[in-house]
């Protein structure tokens, strides 16, 4: 078998695929965070817990109601979004006029409560969630084996990111959202019900996290801490891309997943820190992030 830069292709492409999968999750999660931060000015630390809730709702629906993967892809994000909307209405709404720090503290506290509750009920060992039979198996591409489900995850996350981008850039609702991010008071003075828009945006951002959670359920085991492990990296992705930048967070998500994958091939010792090293460099050179606007 041939080698590329001294690396067997199976290893190289295998790690690139893993990187792309991680990048898919980074992209969908950081997209939701960027949307929420842009309009609400809230750094949503509950995002990881909401991702975990997505996976758990899918698992619970399968276990107790026999509802399978495909309906779960829609129903679980809706259920978690409703929980998010209740949180926004009851708690976050009171913080919009305060410094970012208060939103961060509240959402961090909520994440601890949610994760603690799930851990108390379900323990920390993962719950298995089977790959739907339509997506089991894979393709031998010659230079690597491509599991069908992983290809699906990449495609589904791309579709979610593209759909969200189109919604924001090409629709009237998206124009309200972009304008509201700049000057919500004026958008309201034009007759737009901004508080409802804020609630729905939070719900949508949370639904994206839960959607990623359902996608993740068959790959990683469903466990209460699955989000807290991921969220720190996702925050680094958002900082690198630029807080509040929609396109920035998507591109950065995929790119950093791939860079992480390549690092695993060439210098595995650095694979868990490479994203944070890049974050430090970006913060030093361009504090607003690669795609962010300096304010």
């Amino acid at each position, binding site marked *: 078998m041939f080698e590329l830069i001294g690396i067997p292709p199976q290893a190289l492409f295998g790690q690139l695929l893993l990187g792309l999968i991680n990048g898919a999750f980074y992209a969908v999660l950081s997209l939701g965070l960027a949307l929420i931060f842009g309009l609400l000015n809230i750094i949503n630390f509950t995002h990881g817990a909401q991702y975990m809730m997505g996976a758990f709702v899918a698992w619970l629906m399968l276990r107790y109601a026999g509802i399978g993967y495909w309906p779960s892809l829609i129903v679980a994000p809706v259920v978690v979004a409703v929980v998010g909307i209740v949180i926004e209405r009851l708690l976050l709404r009171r913080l919009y006029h305060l410094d970012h720090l208060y939103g961060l503290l509240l959402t961090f506290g909520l994440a601890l409560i949610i994760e603690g509750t799930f851990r108390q009920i379900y323990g920390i060992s993962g719950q298995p969630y089977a790959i739907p039979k339509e997506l089991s198996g894979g393709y031998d591409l010659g230079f690597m084996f491509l599991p069908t489900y992983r290809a699906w995850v990449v495609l589904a996350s791309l579709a979610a990111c593209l759909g969200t981008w189109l919604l924001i850039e090409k629709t009237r609702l998206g124009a309200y959202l972009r*304008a509201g991010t*700049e000057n919500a*008071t004026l958008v309201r003075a034009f*007759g737009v019900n901004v508080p409802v828009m804020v609630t729905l945006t939070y719900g949508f951002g949370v639904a994206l996290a839960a959607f990623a959670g359902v996608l993740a359920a068959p790959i990683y085991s469903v466990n209460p801490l699955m989000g807290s492990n991921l969220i720190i990296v996702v925050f680094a992705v958002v900082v690198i891309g630029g807080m509040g930048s929609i396109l920035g967070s998507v591109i950065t998500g995929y790119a950093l997943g791939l860079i992480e994958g390549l690092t695993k091939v060439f210098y595995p010792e650095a694979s868990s820190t490479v994203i944070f090293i890049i974050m430090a460099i970006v913060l030093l050179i361009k504090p607003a992030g690669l795609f962010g606007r300096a304010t």
Partner: protein
Amino acid sequence: MLDGPRVADALLTVRGLNAWYGESHILHGMDFDVRRGEVATLLGRNGAGKSTTLKSIMGIVPRRTGIVDFDGRSIIGLPANRIARQGLGYVPEERGIFASLNVRENLLLPPVVRPGGMTLDEVHALFPPLLERSSSQGTKLSGGEQQMLAIARILRTGANLLLLDEPTEGLAPVIVQQIGAIIRQLKAKGLTVLLVEQNFHFAATVADRHYIVEHGRVIDAIDNDQIPVNRQKLQAYLGV
């Protein structure tokens, strides 16, 4: 000052309007009327409370008390989005053009609040540069074009009372003349305009009535055709 019976054909009635920013008490009982189809101005020096009056009418000052009636209905307790839906169009002092939207998106942003607004073609006929530059980023326009965009976008909405906050500020004299011509055209179409101005000479070319604002109160009202006999008073009020 004008605390008394209401004017019968008033589209907007303001009585005893008070407003605060935090602890700062900005408006101390504004009283004035804007009649249907007229152009009225709030004139006064910087910091007199003119812009705060418009913001209070639009519901974007958090704490306000008093009477604000639009078309016979009280709007003082309504949230800003519902006030706009009654038929008020607001052009803020800083123009409020959105950088993340192109010219066309800025133009189409405010929702239609009642029937009778201009079509996009009519708006473009009134402001031709906005058609030529429809895909430019909103904030890349010149100051005059941005002001035209800020006015143009509320003409689509069907609002019948336009609140314009210093539309001539920082603009070249030729652009100021154009803005004046546009305001006269809007009046001719039957729209009612409440204009905040520091530029008295401009205000005198477009308005039917002037309210002089000082320390958050209306201290005098002068009809535009009475300006010649009130020159000395105006000079004392405004330093013009």
